């Protein structure tokens, strides 16, 4: 399916779309023509003081390369780390919390869990609203949504607080009352009271942001939302103005953490949804390219300078999680960050990247990461003052990277420096040769990543030995082959443009938004009229929201799901639901749908007890565009003509350093095929293929690698 741009973006002649991913160091761009598949990528330094400046200049340069005017752009799709940074750097607005009387400390008490058993120096997350700005408000909703008699909301008190907060220079107010997921009325009335008394305050209510059970996580998410709201509004307003001045007349859309696109208006209302939107692009790209290449189930593997990320692509879509943490403040440990309970593309992030440092620990073992040399000073071989050996240094010593062709030759690498550092810090203490030590570093970082990927995949019901691996990011293609072997997976796929994959992935996203209602109950006793009413309400909201993005009628679909479990369990299984009204007569079908899903995940059914549904969800979305990147004009199906020469590289199956053929990625077109060992080079990355593997280039320009049965696990 090719999406017509007409409805969503309007206007004649706006044939191009752009993806823009602002990262910490670089802003990546792609300009793409849906009708021909032709594309141009760009990379420019991020301008942290005003990130929209780099967008404008980067777009201008990329459009020049694409020989198109700004007016030809119909859509700009944008992902940003702005919200993540605002939370980590605590650069949001001074924010107050209004909570149910007696519960202003829920935000600080948290789950009372010690996330590391043995470490006596733990630190807990710091709430965004300090205790002197947290207030208990009289008014109490019970678990069934009713108001406790005699405990109605004290609106006068809320108004008084609002006036005082505004007078004290507070700009943002979060309202999170107990059980508001069951009935938002008191929160809505409190918001009105605040707005009556002090209309200049920004207000978020928890039943709007995340209407789900568990007060700590819901409150934390709501506070984060309003904390960053002013900054996001300002940024998006500036960006729109800047783009308009530059001649852009199309639609600006934002990628949100669930991997969907939202309008500027929606993103401004729930800015916390912009968290993690950059990495989401990579998973979207994996899903889109995988589907185009005929794989609906994949493991997306993105390895950069400091971290690696895996995401499971299930039946053509990245899996979603409902909660994550930002600002992990103690050794990056899970449990030390602020919980954000919103749908996010589920990813596991590991402190393993090209800059990860290798060292010998107190037990005399070789450890790699999570400490990283980062981009500055970077690996020893960058020659910028780094002294500790890193994964990139090992990859260079192993011959996987060409010292003269790093970033297409833009930077030369210091092999001698890398060898010295590995010799001194790793090889000598362990009594290994420098190559063996480098291979050890390579192997351990791979095993760290593969181990995390294995647990992550299994926890989500996937079989890591079956999923093809889709590798990208600067270091992903270097390590992808050994990771694939370590997972026991038969196949590796390396897309072209691996260095700007997130921006490319933005182009594959659909305009969509998700809605949630918590209304728990056993299937055999549920009030189905209420469930149907909740679905109708959510679909109405979805229809209105998508209409604001120009999507109407049959372009809009509403997908329903329920989170279900055996009564007594605490973790739910998401079960897709059919359209149409639900009722008692459909309970057997629903139970069967649940058990099918449960069996798929855990291999065996639970005991014979009742099943309950906890949360009801819909995703309202517009059509999902397909991506077909055209290959370079110089590419051909003849692999021999793409061969650049040979290089000494370490292949353990062949006993060590061997002459390995090197191919030019840009000259490998659809139909080309060759055998490993091989090295395939492009500007932003290098693919390393082991002996016995077979490589072919598919119709989309992907390298498709069948892993040798006897490949040494990395």
């Amino acid at each position, binding site marked *: 399916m090719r999406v017509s741009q007409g409805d969503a973006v309007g206007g004649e002649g706006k044939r191009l779309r752009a993806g823009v991913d602002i990262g910490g160091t670089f802003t990546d761009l792609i300009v793409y023509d849906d009708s021909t598949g032709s594309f141009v990528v760009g990379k420019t330094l991020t301008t942290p003081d005003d990130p929209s400046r780099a967008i404008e200049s980067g777009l201008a340069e990329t459009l020049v390369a694409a020989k198109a005017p700004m007016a030809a752009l119909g859509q700009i799709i944008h992902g940003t780390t702005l919200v993540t940074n605002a939370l980590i750097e605590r650069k949001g607005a001074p924010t107050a919390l209004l909570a149910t009387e007696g519960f202003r400390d829920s935000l600080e008490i948290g789950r009372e869990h010690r996330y590391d058993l043995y470490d006596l*120096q733990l630190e807990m997350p710091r709430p965004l609203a300090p*205790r002197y700005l947290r207030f208990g408000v009289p008014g109490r909703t019970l678990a069934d949504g009713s108001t406790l008699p005699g405990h109605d909301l004290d609106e006068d008190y809320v108004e008084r*607080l609002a006036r005082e907060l505004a007078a004290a220079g507070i700009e943002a107010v979060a309202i999170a009352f107990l059980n508001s997921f069951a009935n938002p009325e008191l929160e809505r009335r409190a918001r009105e009271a605040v707005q009556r008394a002090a209309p200049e305050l920004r207000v978020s209510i928890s039943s709007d942001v995340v209407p789900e059970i568990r007060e700590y996580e819901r409150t934390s998410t709501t506070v984060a939302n309003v904390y960053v709201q002013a900054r996001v509004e300002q940024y998006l307003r500036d960006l729109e103005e800047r783009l308009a001045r530059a001649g852009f007349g199309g639609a600006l859309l934002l990628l949100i953490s669930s991997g969907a696109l939202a309008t500027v208006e929606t993103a401004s209302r729930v800015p916390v949804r912009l968290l993690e939107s950059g990495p989401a692009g990579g998973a979207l790209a994996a899903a889109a390219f995988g589907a185009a290449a005929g794989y609906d189930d994949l493991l997306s593997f993105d390895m950069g300078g400091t971290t690696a990320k895996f995401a499971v692509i299930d039946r053509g879509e990245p899996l979603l999680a409902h909660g994550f943490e930002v600002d992990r403040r103690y050794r990056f440990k899970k449990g030390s960050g602020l919980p954000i309970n919103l749908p996010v593309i589920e990813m596991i992030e590991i402190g393993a990247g090209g800059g990860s440092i290798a060292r010998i620990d107190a037990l005399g073992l070789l*450890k790699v990461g999570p400490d990283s040399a980062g981009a500055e000073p970077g690996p020893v071989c960058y020659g910028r003052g780094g002294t500790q050996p890193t994964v990139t240094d090992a990859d260079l010593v192993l011959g996987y990277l060409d010292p003269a062709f790093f970033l297409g030759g833009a930077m030369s690498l210091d092999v001698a420096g890398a060898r010295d550092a590995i010799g001194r810090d790793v090889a000598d203490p362990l009594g290994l040769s420098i190559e063996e030590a480098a291979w050890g570093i390579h192997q351990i970082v791979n095993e760290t990543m593969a181990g995390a990927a294995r647990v992550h995949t299994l926890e989500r019901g996937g079989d890591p030995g079956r999923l093809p691996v889709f590798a990208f990011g600067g270091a992903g293609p270097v390590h992808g082959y050994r990771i694939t072997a370590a997972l026991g997976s038969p196949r590796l796929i390396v897309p072209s443009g691996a260095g700007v994959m997130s921006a490319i992935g933005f182009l594959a996203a659909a305009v969509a938004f998700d809605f949630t209602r918590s209304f728990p109950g056993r299937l055999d006793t549920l009030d189905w009229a209420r469930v149907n009413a909740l679905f109708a309400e959510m679909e109405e909201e979805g229809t209105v929201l998508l209409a604001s993005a120009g999507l109407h009628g049959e372009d809009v679909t509403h997908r329903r799901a329920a989170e279900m479990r055996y009564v007594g369990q605490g973790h739910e299984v998401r079960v897709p639901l059919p359209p149409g009204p639900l009722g008692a007569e459909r309970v057997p079908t629903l139970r069967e749908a649940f058990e099918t899903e449960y069996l798929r995940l855990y291999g*065996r059914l639970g*005991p014979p007890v009742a099943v309950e549904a906890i949360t009801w969800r819909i995703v309202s979305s517009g059509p999902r565009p397909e991506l077909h990147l055209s290959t370079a004009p110089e590419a051909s199906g003849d692999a021999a003509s793409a061969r650049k020469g040979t290089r000494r590289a370490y292949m353990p*199956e062949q006993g060590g350093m061997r002459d390995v053929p090197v191919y030019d990625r840009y000259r490998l077109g659809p139909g080309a095929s060759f055998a490993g060992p091989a090295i395939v080079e492009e500007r932003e990355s290098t693919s390393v293929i082991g002996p016995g593997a077979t490589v072919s280039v598919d119709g989309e320009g992907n390298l498709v690698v069948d892993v040798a*049965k006897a490949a040494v696990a990395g």
Partner: protein
Amino acid sequence: MTAETTDVAPVAKTLDPVTLEVLWNRLLSVANEQQAALMRTAFSTVVRESQDLACGVFDTRAQMMAQSLTGTPGHINPMATGVRHLLAAYPPETLGPGDVLITNDPWMTSGQLNDFTVVTPVFREGRIVGYFGNLCHAADIGGQVFSGEAHEIYEEGLRVPVTKLFDRGEPNHELLKIIRANVRLPDETVGDLYAQASCNDVGGRALLTMMDEFGLESVDPLSDEIIARSERALREAIRTLPDGVYQHEVWSDGFEEPIKIAVTLTVRDDEIDIDFEGSSPQSGRGINVVLNYTHGYASFALKAAVAPDVPHNEGAFRPVHVTAPLGSILNCVDPAAVAARHLVGHFVPSAIFGALAQALPDKLLAGGADPIWLSVWRGEHPENDEPFMTAIFQVGGTGARAAKDGLSTTGFPSGVAGLPAEVIEHLSALVQAKRELRTDSGGAGATRGGLGQATEFWYRGDGPWSVSAMIDRTRFAAQGFAGGGPGGIGEFATDGQPLKPKTVISLQPGQTVLLAPPGGGGYGDPFTRPVDSVLADVVAGYVSMEGAARDYGVVVQYLGTPEQLVRLPERYGVDEEETERLRARERL
């Protein structure tokens, strides 16, 4: 390696440091897979929300090679010894594929009937290559409602001797029938046993994959290496302690009479003896601790103190020798009642830290809330008269650290999590009226103790309801270190009247119950705490103005108007002259 491999890979055949690290990481991830499966399929909130569990992988000699990431020390180490007892009853040669062993015998495992240990042998080509074990807290085990009231273990519920949960893949239906007939929550209790069996299977599959992938015939050489290196690292850490004898004692409320926990640590080169001679004799009520559980918390405390980063396995037990007089509160004799044993056992790390404080200044926690607070509530849903039974975990504050304040409302030594008010209200007819930090409950110090919390509950029903509160530190405050002050003690009361902990209390509609877990002790002289930190604590309300003057010698004034609700930091000031005078005077 498969047969097609012609060239030998340089590192694959021997346990060099690189291969060892790769395999070791894999084992840890195998144990974490096991725990993930357990939590996702478990029924009781105790397992799935509060993580009162342990998972581990064992070699063919029943030595623990790796444990999963979280869990509680009271479960991990007793599980490790429990596996040996299970295999003594069913020797390996009698086991076949599909067999799963189970027991909840307190003396073989973690010291209370509510904890089931489930162990599964892993077979490869007809041979046992290892075992997976896990231990978690069951929703119910029958007997009296969970409390400290029993005089003998027979009153505390059903005891399951070492037996088979599954026999060659078939559930032991006779056993499951007996369990169902004896417990109040049969679906949850049996549902968890299924989850315990499946998670061992998940671990077993992952172990076999690993052995295939790396061509391992046995994991025992790997195990030897892991254990030897961990043991060596722990010995190195112990060697940094000055040789000598270190003593300390702490007090628990007890059931009727206070209970003394006395510890003597003897450090000799790279070994350490931990002896509890001098502790109270065993009690006539259900607060007795089996030696296994004592051992678990003692070895945990030592490792957390000297070598928190060394991986935990069999090697961590070897340099540490734990003893307690037979018949004492920490080594009770069958058929002593044991249900509320954590209320005494959780003091063991505090006692050990108190003793080690002299040898390890700056590294340890001052005294904290210690035992986790566990309350079990019963009543009926007014809508349909269905009974409910809900267990709520709560924690107080930890002791201060030399360079950091203690953690408010965070468990230590147990790592379990609390239960959200909304989950409580969804599962029961309870209404939680309050959950706030307790001002002034953190012990004063150069670094302050963590705060406890004040929580209140009432009942929506119209008939009787009850609570059994297994709690402690309502009489003896957590002690500070190095001149730090004590934490606030815990409170359990209804309408201003104190209630008796560790017993089942009958309640009437209209009553409100207060449960207020204690605060942690402070570290160092509170008069040296920076004035700005004291000021910030007053602004936040962690410390009252009276407390600041009394405990810290800092006179803080509120400069705004009394009716103001919003009190920003700039509305407070320090009376520097008066502060100087107070701090100087106290020093004389």
